[in-house]
């Protein structure tokens, strides 16, 4: 087996794929009509859409659990119908919502199902099982010999992912893999999976009905509407900024502006410097700094440059030193990786204009305000308008 | 050589035996049901009694019927009583289990709603829980009745037996037409009774019908 640090990933192409369940009707639930798209190697492509739009059907056609009525699916340019079904399926990782772990086998045995089918030697199976369990955040010694019934939903999902990765497949199919767990666990699983993908860089087809999940997880998003018709295909930013039709706009939601905020992070903005004053500083010096501050507040910091609170200018005493009691901790602390959506939310919750951006050691870096975020959104919208052609002239001869 | 012509001439005998058979079955199932219902209600109040009661019923059920009758005969003789005691014993396990399963199948939120609305425990039992337990109870009755129909045959050995008598006598006198006729009527009886009880079950649960499925 190639070293895990040399990822292999394949391209997946749908060419005019159609699946009809009823020869007379085009739009029965689960049907797919003339779907064509290409997923480049190493990318996550999310298929998203309302119930019955054919996204799961499309997914299952890749590992031939369902066969198309017409059209072709190609992996690395090879039509999958020319390949042996069993060999095809063993080379594709498959994760479903209910996981489908084998209750009568231990977690360790479950994880190496495909390697065992492929005839790997026992020692290698065992090593691989431990490696994968660690990869998905489950301590091998504790989990290897347990049974699925003893695990929680979130733990089982992780085992499902580990099992799909066991034979190091170049493609993974994931059908609402995080749907059966509660939102807190789901978010954690999503984040961990994204981190895993950074390492493994596999080609992943991911089905979900949740547009937020699609935007978060996908490098490319395919929006499907009833009848398996492709409404739009592109990076999440494009889907949000320039929905191709009313359907897409409606599906994405009226709050797509806000959704775009979740795609950008605090670090993407040009941040403002913040005026700080360390504890124990002379009052006169504090007043001097205040003159240059953009807002009538000073940020009190400790000797490590970590924020303590805001000091309003009226509260600075006439003489003496600046002390801790003067500070009012009002603002939320954010780091550069916080999404703009979370940042805005935190600021609104705290009912303040400004948030303090700190580094990993909690040291003050800069300031971010609600106005800055609003300004950023406006700029993005202006881009939109320009491209939509508000300023474009009608075709004139010349 | 099987003398099939015996049959038309002896319809009367078959009919009488059938009637006997039905009576024996009817008594056994009715008594068994009453007893099981009583025991089930007791268990329902005090769960701890379930394992011992079910255990005893289970042992009775496992003991081959011939052996069970053999145990009884020295005490109660070759009589209807012996037959009925044996037959009733076999119905206990099936009926108790099914009644309990039926009562347990009532969702806790329904029970709570009934309690919240002011039903006394007795009213709740009679108006809500038992009706909802009906499908499983009827299923239990079906199994118990069909099983009993089969067992009644064995009681022929102790002088009862309904259609079993016809078969046994036929067997002893090498009248094999009687044997097959008796068997056929027994099977027919079992099938008819099964269908009747299924129909009864549908009637008793109009809400399941409305949903379109059983």
């Amino acid at each position, binding site marked *: 087996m190639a070293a895990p640090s040399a990822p292999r990933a394949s391209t997946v192409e749908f060419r005019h794929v159609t699946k009809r369940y009823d020869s007379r009707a085009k739009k029965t639930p689960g049907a797919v009509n003339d779907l064509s798209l290409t997923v480049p190697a190493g990318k996550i492509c999310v298929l998203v859409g309302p119930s019955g739009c054919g996204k799961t059907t499309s997914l299952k056609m890749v590992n031939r*659990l369902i066969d198309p009525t017409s059209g072709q699916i190609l992996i690395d340019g090879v039509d999958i119908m020319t390949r042996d*079904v*069993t060999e*095809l*399926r*063993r080379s*594709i990782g*498959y994760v*479903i919502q*209910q*996981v*489908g*772990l084998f*209750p*009568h*086998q*231990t977690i360790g045995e479950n994880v190496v*199902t*495909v390697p065992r*089918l492929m005839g790997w030697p026992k020692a290698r199976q065992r090593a691989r099982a431990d490696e994968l369990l660690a990869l998905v955040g489950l301590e091998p010694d504790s989990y290897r010999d347990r*049974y*699925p*019934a003893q695990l929680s939903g979130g733990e089982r999902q992780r085992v499902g992912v580990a*099992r799909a990765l066991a034979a190091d497949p170049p493609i993974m199919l994931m059908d609402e893999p995080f749907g059966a767990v509660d939102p807190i666990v789901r978010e954690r699983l999503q984040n961990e999976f994204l981190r895993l993908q950074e390492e493994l860089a596999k080609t992943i087809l991911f089905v979900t009905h949740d547009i937020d999940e699609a935007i978060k997880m996908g490098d490319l998003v395919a929006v499907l509407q009833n009848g398996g018709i492709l409404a739009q295909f592109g990076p999440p930013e494009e889907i949000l900024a320039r929905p191709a039709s009313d359907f897409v706009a409606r599906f994405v939601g009226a709050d797509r502006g806000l959704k775009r905020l979740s795609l950008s992070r605090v670090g993407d903005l040009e941040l403002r410097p913040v005026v700080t004053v360390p504890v124990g500083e002379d009052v006169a010096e504090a007043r001097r700094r205040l003159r240059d501050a953009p807002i009538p507040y000073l940020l009190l910091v400790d000797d490590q440059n970590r924020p303590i609170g805001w000091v309003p200018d009226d509260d600075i005493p006439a003489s003496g030193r600046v002390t801790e009691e003067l500070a009012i901790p009002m603002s939320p602390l954010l780091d550069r990786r916080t999404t703009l959506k979370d940042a805005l939310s935190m600021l609104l919750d705290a009912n303040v204009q400004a948030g303090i951006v700190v580094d990993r050691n909690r040291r003050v870096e800069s300031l971010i305000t609600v106005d800055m975020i609003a300004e950023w959104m406006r700029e993005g919208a202006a881009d939109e308008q320009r491209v939509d052609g508000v300023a474009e002239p009608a075709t004139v001869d010349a | 050589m*099987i003398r099939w012509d015996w049959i038309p001439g002896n319809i009367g005998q078959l009919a009488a035996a059938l009637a006997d058979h039905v009576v024996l079955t009817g008594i056994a199932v009715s008594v068994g049901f009453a007893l099981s219902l009583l025991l089930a209600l007791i268990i329902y109040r005090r769960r701890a009694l379930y394992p011992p009661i079910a255990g005893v019923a*289970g042992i009775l*059920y*496992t*003991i*081959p019927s*011939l*052996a069970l009758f*053999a*145990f009884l*005969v*020295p*005490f109660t003789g070759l009589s209807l009583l012996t037959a009925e005691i044996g037959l009733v014993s*076999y119905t206990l396990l*099936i009926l108790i*289990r099914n009644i309990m399963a039926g009562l347990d199948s009532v969702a806790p939120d329904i029970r709570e709603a009934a309690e919240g609305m002011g039903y006394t425990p007795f009213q709740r039992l009679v108006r809500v829980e038992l009706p909802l337990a009906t*499908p499983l109870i009827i*299923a239990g009755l*079906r*199994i118990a009745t069909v*099983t009993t*129909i*089969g*067992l009644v*045959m*064995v009681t022929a*050995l102790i002088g009862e037996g309904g259609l079993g008598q016809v078969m*046994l006598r036929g067997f002893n006198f090498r009248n*094999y037409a009687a*044997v097959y006729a008796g*068997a056929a009527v*027994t*099977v027919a009886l*079992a*099938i008819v009774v*099964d269908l009747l009880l299924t129909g009864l079950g549908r009637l008793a649960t109009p809400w399941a019908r409305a949903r379109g499925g059983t």
Partner: protein
Amino acid sequence: MDIVRLVADWFADPARWTGTDGIPNRLIEHVGLSGFVVLVALAIALPVGLYIGHSGRGAIIAIGAANLGRAVPSYALLLMFFPIFGLGFGTAFPALVLLAIPPVLTNTYVGLCDVDRDTVEAARGMGMTEWQLLRIVELPIALPVIVAGARTAAVQVVATATLAALVAGGGLGRYIVDGFALQDDGRLLGGAILVALLALATERLFTLVERRLVSPGLRGAPPPGGPAYEFAGQAPLPVGSAGV
């Protein structure tokens, strides 16, 4: 108590333990016949049940077998085969095999049906062949129910083999039948006790077998004490010799 003395004396009699009519011999006849019947029934019903359960085809056979098996009393089967096969083993054997097939067939079918569809889909999606799916996934998961079916069958066979004595066969039933005929209460009750013990022991044996064979990961899933499956789809049919 008279009766207790009668039975104790019967057991105590040394003649009881030797010869053709001795307890050891009758026991061997009984167990031998029962064991052989169960093996044959398993050999017939298991493959058929596995095929129907896995492929979903021919379910009507499994349903039909269950209903027929319930409706036709074992005693009747014995009597019906007699004119064809005559005295002894020849009659008892086919009747008992026919008796043992329905529980195994039905339970195997239902056990396979009950395997979680998601588990099956995951297994197929991972690239198992149909045979691997059956062998590695479906069969082990369905095992508790299948063993329960075998247990029902075995107990029923042991119980009905008692009646084989009626068709001049051997086995422990001889004591009961002869006891009735000769009005010998000691023999009657002694035989009854032996038969009852054998039936209970058979049930115990299969429960132990189940415990050894079934994966610990499946514990805590129904059925534990092991009711076999009633095909009506609702209530489980208990293990036992009723029908005899």
